[in-house]
């Protein structure tokens, strides 16, 4: 039982971090479908830098790459007013492809000094609490949310819509980068092409499941982690085929989603803001 809870937290952590990152930008109205690719590139950057300069700098590099990619997405999704979904998907594909290409020399190499998973887990929990306070308890959070709900009104009140969205993408990108760093520096710890194995997509789904609430994202991520672990823990001791077990975490998440009722998305989600229109 203790073991299961520990796994729930430790496997839930990368999902939680990435999910918080996506949640933050969605609260300002920008959908980020690039999470998977951002995580992959951050994981690679973290691993590469960690090999050369130690794990702490590696983790920083992961965060840095995440911030950079968040801003990069902003250029298209905010400034150029491109379709956010297409821009995000392109970033996901780009990140996965580029990380595979650039990471060839780091394949099959053990990491000299891994970081403790527990540290990341605490940090993620702290970030969730901080984000909760930031969004719902601070004046700045009000600006953030107003940009996501009614950018026109926010603009009229003198809030820089594009500025807030860039900031959210950068901060969120940093958290997604931290998720990548966790995978390659603590959870694995090594680098292989495609090592994010779909966790970025789970994180995006979790944002919706959590109803855009950071604290609910914590529960959702841990719940997914628990189910993911249990599919192997229970396999063989319960007369259910292993393939059905493999689908279980996803099925249960969908079920919870259906039962939890419709959470309200930020009103301006997915809509580029153009002052002139």
């Amino acid at each position, binding site marked *: 039982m203790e073991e299961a809870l520990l796994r729930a937290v430790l496997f839930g952590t990368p999902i939680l971090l990435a999910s918080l990152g996506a949640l933050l930008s969605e609260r300002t109205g920008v959908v980020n479908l690039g999470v998977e690719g951002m995580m992959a590139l951050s994981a690679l950057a973290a691993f590469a830098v960690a090999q050369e300069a130690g794990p702490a700098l590696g983790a920083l590099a992961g965060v840095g790459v995440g911030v950079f990619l968040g801003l990069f997405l902003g250029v298209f999704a905010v400034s150029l007013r491109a379709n956010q979904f297409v821009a995000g998907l392109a970033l996901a594909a780009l990140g996965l492809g580029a990380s595979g290409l650039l990471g060839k020399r780091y394949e099959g190499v053990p990491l000299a000094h891994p970081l403790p998973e527990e540290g990341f887990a605490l940090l993620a929990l702290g970030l969730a609490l901080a984000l909760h306070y930031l969004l719902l308890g601070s004046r700045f959070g009000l600006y953030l949310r107003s940009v996501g709900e009614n950018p026109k009104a926010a603009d009229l009140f003198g809030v820089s819509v594009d500025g807030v969205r860039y900031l959210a993408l950068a901060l969120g990108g940093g958290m997604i980068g931290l998720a990548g760093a966790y995978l390659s520096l603590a959870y694995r710890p*090594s680098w*292989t092409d495609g090592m994010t*194995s779909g966790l970025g997509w789970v994180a995006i789904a979790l944002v919706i499941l959590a109803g855009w609430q950071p604290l609910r994202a914590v529960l959702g991520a841990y719940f997914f982690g628990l189910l993911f672990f249990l599919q192997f823990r229970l396999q*063989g001791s319960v007369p259910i085929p292993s393939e059905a077990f493999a689908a279980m975490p996803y099925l249960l998440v969908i079920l919870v989603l259906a039962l939890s009722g419709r959470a309200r998305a930020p009103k301006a989600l997915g809509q580029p803001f153009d002052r002139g229109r």
Partner: protein
Amino acid sequence: MRRILGLVLLALGLAWAQGDKLKACFIYVGPIGDAGWTYAHDQGRKKAEAALPWLETRYVESVPEAQALPVIDRFVKEGCQVIFATSFGYMEAVLEAAKKYPNVIFAHATGIKRAPNVATYMADFYQVYYLNGLAAGALSKTGKVGYVAAFPIPEVKRHINAFTLGVRAVNPKAQVLVRWINAWYDPAKAREATEALLSQGADVFAFTEDTPTVIQTAAKKGAYSFGHYTPMLKFAPNHVVSGQIVHWDVIYIDFLKRVKEGVYTAKNLENVDYFWLLQHKAVEMGADYGVPINPKHVPLLQKAQMTVGGKKVSVYDRIMALMKDMQSPKPTFDPFTGPIQDRKGVVRIPAGKKATLQELLSMEWAAPGVVGDWPGEPK
């Protein structure tokens, strides 16, 4: 007219190519840096090229199984005379292409269908798994050995069975706890499956997955493990005991030499099937190249005892003796020698008989000692 011109050019090109170098082309299902299956094939390709001065090679990596045919078309246009398709899923594409290009020689890894210009080949680990099983049986204190398995197909089942027979030969009460992850590559699943097995008391691990995740996870909790496919000692120098290592180059070199000598042509491959084992040096037992057992664990295995034919012998000596035997040109020992019952008590291999190649390739039953779900288990 253009077609005729094209054919003439192709014929000229082939004639020129044959006078000069032999061009062999490889289709890989994964990236060459995956430290697993595709990496091993690519090492084989490189070694073959280094060993055969008249050989020229080319490869395309990460080819999805549905995309194999266009890649083959391109290879043929570029003058490839021998095409190696290195994934089971390429089977239909290979057979179709073989009809389309009757003068090109194809070889299909892990394949089960042949044609006049399609051979099949496989470097199999079942003997190595048995030897590793002996060591695992000796090292487990809890009597529970963990196995993180990719897909419930005969190849993987054969390996788990051979491994379990080895474990049980040393410790007749030991269990091999099997967890399926239904993926060849999925470090997250491999990690959590290992964690699940650790929490159930497993203290020695073997696996089929393309990353060293199981090894790294087991080592964190001080559990022993056996590498898979490539040398994995460096990922946990204190905990990797041994493992299975492949040498595809041995098969590639043999095959290509025979093509060069004209022994294999595009007309006589119908019965050419390599199922190469320890005796052909296509596989190796090892924590690393040339390290059958990690020296750190040799004393433990020397101390451990097992009963063979009523006599006590050290597990280490037994492993070494059997390995030597199976590496010899005419092995006398085979792990699948009867009498062997499956875990339900049905006799699968009668006393004194060895499993036939067909029985090995279609193995669905589970050996006694295997614990866990076993999709496709015969009633």
